[in-house]
């Protein structure tokens, strides 16, 4: 709870700092602040006794608007880490627009509050506001280069479709409210347990599901993602593909775990279909992409498909989802740090820009390689364990087919991840290279080290969730 307030405060602090001409201090202060908040989060986690507890414990604040539990706090920690990375890269990325720096940092911080609200809500109002804060921040970020038509287009597309999806989510929430008479999770949950709900309730759930499927860019609601990812400024694409996607997925999971207690067979069928469709569409479409951001968008779609599998057995999957999300997001940050470095001052993000990176900047090339390998699921990187944990849990539910499809998709995915690796190592660079900016280098290395570390020691993450 306090983290949410603190972060919002930090965001306002940023805005004030700009007023008082403390522009240079913004990013260091933000990072230090976020680290402190991370510490706060950890201490709250400890205070709750979650590190030793065996069962999940929930602690509600403010009339149960915010609930602290291991799920929410673990994801909060992850989001904060991701935001630190994103914020750290901001000044370098926006060095041409120094005046807007505070805005960008503040928006990212507010976006973080939205994300945190999405994983620690106790009331659908918080959830809805959280998702809107997140979405609106993203619309802004997507369109944040007003003079760039691509950015405009991305923002426009994202906004129109996002608002449309928000409408559907809202409709779903209204129906749930209509069925249960409350927005409070706990009340709704007990209403479900008592049974005898009107049929709208489930329609509401489905509407909510559809809205969230849109937010995580699962097929067939994915079509905005490639365009938006491509058009947005690269750093903001990074934000979308890591923080936003993971937050939406976590929120989705949390909702489904608390609201959709007894999953009907047809609902499972839909989830499976969407999951398979996402994986397949994402991977196959990614094969022929030339733009790296676009390719990662499709890759993200396929990962959304993978993550959707957690909904097949929510009670057992929270750890798996967290691990998957962390692995995916950290690898994504690492990959984007390199992409930012490579495509700075370039007119596009096509694959050929990466030619010869293996020679010109071995460290960045190695980082990107590791990140891509992790996403492809090559051991011993965390991406492998993510998939592995996921598959083993899904197999326990008896859905062999979806695992086979997922495996086949993993194979396809190697095809496009390797396209990039090949460009880096087998082609010659076209032009002279610039120095690796410190911010990108540090973020890339740190995030890839984290990726490897959680691969080597998965228990550290899995143990956080009960």
């Amino acid at each position, binding site marked *: 709870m306090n983290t949410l307030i603190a972060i919002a405060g930090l965001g306002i602090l940023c805005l004030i700092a700009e007023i008082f001409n403390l522009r240079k201090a913004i990013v260091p202060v933000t990072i230090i602040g976020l680290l402190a908040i991370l510490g706060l989060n950890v201490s709250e986690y400890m205070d709750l006794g979650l590190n030793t507890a065996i069962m999940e414990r929930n602690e509600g604040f403010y009339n149960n608007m915010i609930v602290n539990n291991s799920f929410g706090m673990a994801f909060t920690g992850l989001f904060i880490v991701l935001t630190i990375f994103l914020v750290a890269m901001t000044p370098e990325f926006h060095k041409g627009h120094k005046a807007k720096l505070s805005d960008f940092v503040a928006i990212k911080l507010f976006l973080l509050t939205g994300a945190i609200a999405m994983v620690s809500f106790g009331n659908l109002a918080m959830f809805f506001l959280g998702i809107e804060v997140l979405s609106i921040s993203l619309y802004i970020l997507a369109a944040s280069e007003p003079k760039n038509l691509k950015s405009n287009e991305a923002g426009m597309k994202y906004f129109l479709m996002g608002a449309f999806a928000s409408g559907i989510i809202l409709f779903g929430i209204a129906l749930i409210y209509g069925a249960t008479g409350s927005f409070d999770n706990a009340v709704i949950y007990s209403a479900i347990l008592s049974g005898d709900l009107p049929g*709208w309730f489930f329609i509401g759930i489905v509407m909510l599901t559809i809205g969230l499927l849109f937010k995580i860019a699962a097929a067939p609601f994915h079509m905005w993602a490639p365009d938006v990812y491509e058009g947005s400024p690269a750093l903001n694409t990074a934000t979308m593909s890591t923080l936003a996607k993971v937050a939406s997925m976590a929120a989705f999971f949390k909702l489904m775990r608390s609201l959709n207690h007894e999953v009907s067979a047809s609902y499972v069928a839909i989830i499976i279909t969407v999951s398979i469709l996402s994986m397949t569409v994402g991977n196959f479409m990614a094969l022929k992409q030339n733009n790296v951001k676009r390719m990662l968008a499709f890759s993200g779609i396929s990962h959304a498909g993978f993550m959707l599998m957690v909904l097949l057995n929510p009670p057992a999957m929270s750890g798996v989802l967290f691990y998957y999300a962390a692995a995916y997001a950290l690898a994504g940050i690492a990959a984007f740090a390199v992409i930012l470095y490579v495509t700075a001052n370039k007119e596009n993000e096509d694959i050929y820009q990466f030619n010869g990176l293996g020679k010109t900047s071995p460290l960045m090339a190695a980082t990107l390689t590791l990140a891509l390998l992790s996403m492809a699921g090559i051991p011993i990187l965390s991406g492998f364990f993510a998939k592995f944990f996921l598959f083993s849990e899904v197999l326990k539910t008896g859905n062999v087919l979806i695992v086979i499809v997922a495996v086949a998709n993993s194979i396809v995915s190697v095809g496009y991840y390797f396209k990039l690796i090949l460009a880096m190592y087998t082609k010659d660079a076209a032009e002279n290279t610039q120095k690796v900016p410190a911010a990108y280098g540090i973020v890339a290395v740190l995030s890839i080290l984290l990726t490897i570390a959680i691969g080597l020691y998965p228990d550290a993450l899995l143990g956080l969730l009960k």
Partner: protein
Amino acid sequence: MENILQQIGIENYIYLSTLLFCVGVFGVLYRRNAIVMFMSIEIMLNAVNLLLVAFSTYHQDAAGQVFVFFSMAVAAAEVAVGLAILVAVYRNIKNIDIDNLKNLKG
């Protein structure tokens, strides 16, 4: 005070809201003028607001109406941002026909 739903029935409000929502959807699909699309989205949100109020009455509970306030805040925020984006687009291509926004594809 008598419950209005006794006479009209909650289901009719649901149908009305649904229809209104669908009209909003229709508008988004039908028009290519971005600003009218925004309006259609507003119609969708309003449909939901109406539903929330109906349910609020149905449950005799204030939370539904409170939620409408949030919904309005969201609508306002969205419109603000949406119009800002629209202005940016307009500055670049001098119109707001979304069919001109087809550069990103494939």
